[in-house]
């Protein structure tokens, strides 16, 4: 059972890593002027909810399967995701708003955030991998 949990987490984590990389690539495209703000934001906004769900599912799974440490590790990032999503002003077109992304260093902060998430997911990936192997051996 435990191994199933971690296999699932691992897969999910992989997806999140890819997503983070995609975010970074798209944002840096915008930075370098390869795409315009509008298309960049619509691309990214599409993936905000999947990312949020993907991460929340793992967090909840860890809570249900009583892996406290991993749960607590995931909790701040998951809650940040939800907070960010909920706090979008009603007039904005999503977490990434094309009219504001070039203002007040938002692009940089988005970039930083994506980098941090990438690091975090990589860390999680190895933890899940380790835990999964451990669980498989124990089985």
């Amino acid at each position, binding site marked *: 059972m435990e191994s199933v949990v971690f296999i699932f987490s691992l897969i999910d984590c992989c997806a999140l890593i890819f997503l983070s990389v995609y975010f970074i690539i798209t944002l840096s495209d915008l930075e370098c*002027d390869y795409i315009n*703000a509008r298309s960049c934001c619509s691309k990214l906004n599409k993936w905000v909810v999947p990312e949020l769900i993907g991460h929340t599912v793992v967090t909840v799974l860890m809570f249900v399967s009583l892996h406290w440490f991993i749960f607590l590790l995931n909790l701040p990032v998951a809650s940040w995701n939800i907070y960010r999503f909920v706090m979008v002003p009603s007039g904005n077109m999503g977490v990434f708003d*094309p009219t504001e992304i070039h203002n007040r260093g938002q692009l940089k902060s988005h970039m930083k955030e994506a980098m941090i998430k990438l690091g975090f997911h990589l860390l999680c990936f190895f933890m899940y991998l380790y835990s999964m192997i451990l669980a498989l051996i124990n089985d």
Partner: protein
Amino acid sequence: MSAPAGIPPRPAAAPGGARAPAARPRAPPCRNGPVQSQVHFPSGYSLNPENYSAPSTHYPQVPHEAIPSQLDNQYIADYHSACYSVPAQSVMTHSIGPGMLNTQQLYGGAPHPVESSGGLLQEAVSSASHLHTSVPQSYSAMSSHYISSTSSSVASQGFPLSSGHYAMPSVSSAVYPHLSYPAMSIGSPYRQVLTSQSLPAVGQFKETNAFPGQSTIVPRTLQQQVTLGYNSTSWSTSDFQSAQENLSRNHTGSVAKASNQINTVGIVDSSHPVNQNVQFTKPGVETSVSSVVTSSVRTPAADHLIEPASVPSSTQPPESLLQEAIDSSSTTSSASPVTNNYDALEGGGYPDSATSSPAPPPQISRNTKPFGYGYPTLQPGYQNATLPTSAMQPSNPGHQSGFQQYPQQYPGVNQLSSSLGGLSLQHSQQPESLRPVNLIQERNILPVSPVLAPVPNLNSDLRKLNCNPDSFRCTLTNIPQTQALLNKAKLPLGLLLHPFRDLTQLPVITSSTIVRCRSCRTYINPFVSFIDQRRWKCNLCYRVNDVPEEFMYNPLTRSYGEPHKRPEVQNSTVEFIASSDYMLRPPQPAVYLFVLDVSHNAVEAGYLTIVCQSLLENLDKLPGDSRTRIGFVTFDSTVQFYNLQEGLSQPQMLIVSDIDDIFLPTPDSLLVNLHESKELIKDLLNALPNMFTNTRETHSALGPALQAAFKLMSPTGGRISVFQSQLPSLGAGLLHSREDPNQRSSTKVVQHLGPATDFYKKLALDCSGQQTAVDLFLLSSQYSDLASLACMSKYSAGCIYYYPSFHHSHNPTQAEKLQKDLKRYFTRKIGFEAVMRIRCTKGLSIHTFHGNFFVRSTDLLSLANVNPDAGFAVQMSIEESLTDTSLVCFQTALLYTSSKGERRIRVHTLCLPVVTSLADVYAGADVQAAVCLLANMAVDRSVSSSLSDARDALVNAVVDSLSAYISSASNLQQSTLIAPNSLKLFPLYVLALLKQKAFRTGTSTRLDDRVYAMCQIKSQPLGHLMKMIHPNLYRIDRLTDEGAIHVNDRVVPQPPLQKLSAEKLTREGAFLMDCGSIFYIWIGKNCDNSFIKDVLGYPNYASVPQKLTQLPELDTLSSERARSFISWLRDSRPLSPVLQVIKDESPAKTDFFHHLIEDRTEAAFSYYEFLVHIQQQICK
């Protein structure tokens, strides 16, 4: 477009049969559907085969696409169209005859076929490519790009209904600049049918609305209309030519210094025989090519054009003659990499790297300090360069001794640049601007004359060359060397721009090569240094560039070998006439669309009369050329379109009541050529105010009307002017009242400063992508949620006007204001499809932009329209320390299409010294610019965070900067509130900001008023904004000639500025307050009777009416003085302000007293209290 949508015709009018077929002399091929059209095409056009096959690419598409989809779509009950005009049948038939003749003539003898078919963008572009043999590749590749990109964009637009429906707008996009479809004979059977059914009343459409039985037939009429429209096309050969000529102008630079009328200047011969060769592009080929070109870059114009992919019959038989040639040309042209977006056109960062080949390694020599310190004397070469008068002299033999002189003139870069930079630090001690001022003790802090912008501490030559502070201003005229120093100073660093200002003198440069830095794309400017006669060093990125051969020749002096005397190097504000490299498509014509609210509310307010009247008066003054197009859309709970096609006897109204899925009833006769349909437009404007007088419709479907307007405009771009009088209540984009009147004077939280929906923002971005700007005129008596509505203008680079509690008779001040605003609005200059880029010296970076535009990429502002009243602001930070330079430069380049269809670039360059000491930073602070920038930042803060945060931030800005100053100047007492002379007005201005409608709390402020004030702060240029923040107060009851100035033989008295406090007001006096957009004249109770008699023209105070908005022209000295003073103030700004005379006991008095910002109000500090508050904060 002959068939009026009018009353639905008989059911027998089936699509195929009803189209009066081959009897027409010209038998336009599209008439009978796609198949026949293809057959007919050759015959129709073969008269002039080399001319006329170009359009054929499109024609078959139209019916082919349009008809089936129209059949599919069940627009049955939705489509009520009516003909409100009651034309007699005889009139109709009359109009038909000439129309036919006319078109025949056109077909027979049209000399410039390309011009007439210029609307077909592909052809126009490709023909252009042919014309400019120098750049053929880029052109045809561009056209290919156009075609390919549309298919995706159309799909992404997501109109699920039908491609055919959508094909209408896209087809009309094909008729880009200059097609017109005068009424043709085909319509005649319909028209008879229609008119026989039509009822003879203006309001008749209402009745037709009520006939459900008829409405079922309507869709068919619609189809016919669509197809007929294309049948009856007469290719009017008008002056797309001019655009072509612009394209092809390859003169060596001819420069003219002209005053005021820029448009007329610099255009040298305009009669090139350009259009001899017509080149046709085959869509199929183009699409295959285009994949190469448009890899991932989405261009703004991408959504414009025709979609060949969706059209099965895109290759036309008649083309076969020409195809081979086309194929070869288009394929070869596609091979070269092409800069295919506006960014690259205007010159985004590194265009080479963006496409394929890496840029050659720039020869940046940062190691060598560009500016030394040890050479105090000016080099002779440079001295020469800064003598504009001598440069303007026509060929002086002594001056142009040519090549040999250069070695002496330019001995070396170091010495030269030393002369540039070294001087700036020589006299860093500036006793005046650094003189400490004790704010609390100094009672009269305000100078008696208006505050001027500080002059940067440069040497006199550079100072002379520097940009006018009205166009370009920096908050710190001494740029700190490092970010650390800037942080220490606690002052905001940013620029305030007014790039498109009306200028009286502007050098316009026509040159085939515009000299720019190869790596950063900076335009050559007065602050570059010439290393020798062949190379110049960019002052922004320090790359060494070659001087092109053409630049060696000076057209002004007609001398060779004096690049430093070229006008580009002599003026910091210049305008270039851009070559075709700077176009993605042929320059668009001026297109104006008016979207008018005709709901009950709006009719009651009576604005329509003013708008129509004003437009009638200014119809001839609308900026534009012979291609200018105009259209009207009105809306209440339905959307009404007006068919103004030339040849109709009266305008026709077409009503679309399906607001959930808005569509255009006819694609091409809604926007008509202003000159061809002028009579109809005048008829409409005369009729419009009375057409809706009895309406009971209270709903407003603004969103659908805007969507329709967008569809109408998207082929060309242009300007949409929206007049709205209430909260939109129907359809997409409907809004709900969010204001709680009880919260108006709350001191705590002000909510709803941001938009409620993203509908308007998305619409604005769509518009911006199609080069369309939306200007909003909000004339409402109730809350209309300006915060949401404003988005449509904010992000599409429009402008916003707001007239609270507007009523044509009850509120004459607002009515007059609307009148004056409209006059200015209609007649002022306009620039279309503009982009602006702001560059600054390496090390500085711009991180935040303020104004109405869309920031498309990191430093590129996309402005669908630019108007001379728009101001912008940017914030900067210092990323790398500026240790190896002593001067920094900023350059704004605004690339736009003038209303005459010319592509122009206006370039401003500002040069500022770099300083290393904190004292110098303070010495160079520009308090007005800083306050305006802070106001912009505070608006952002109040929307993103909260109003109280923004207010705190404003106070903190003063506290921080003053405490930083006090602690830096150690010799000062810490306990007193000291400011440097340059910042002595800082607390006063910030207090004024806190009492602005935008930021005030505690005083009852309607949410819309507040939001409007915020919008103004964001989009007004500095001069106007300063008057809004801190009005000028003058006493005018005893004007004298002391210190008067003479302007145009008039003596203008110069009364001293009074501080904004009631203590300066006396009951015996009369005062004028200049708030920028409004003048208040306040008359005290015991005002001198002679003043009232001589100036106001009333016997005594009691007889002065409450609402007086004009000064009579009396033949007395004091009246003359007062009037000349006021008109002098008026002349100093583009927008003529409204005058309001306020008596001491009139209710309008509160407006006046709100502006006395130095006084205490129940909710806010007085100036003295504010100072004490700041002092406490500092001492904490």
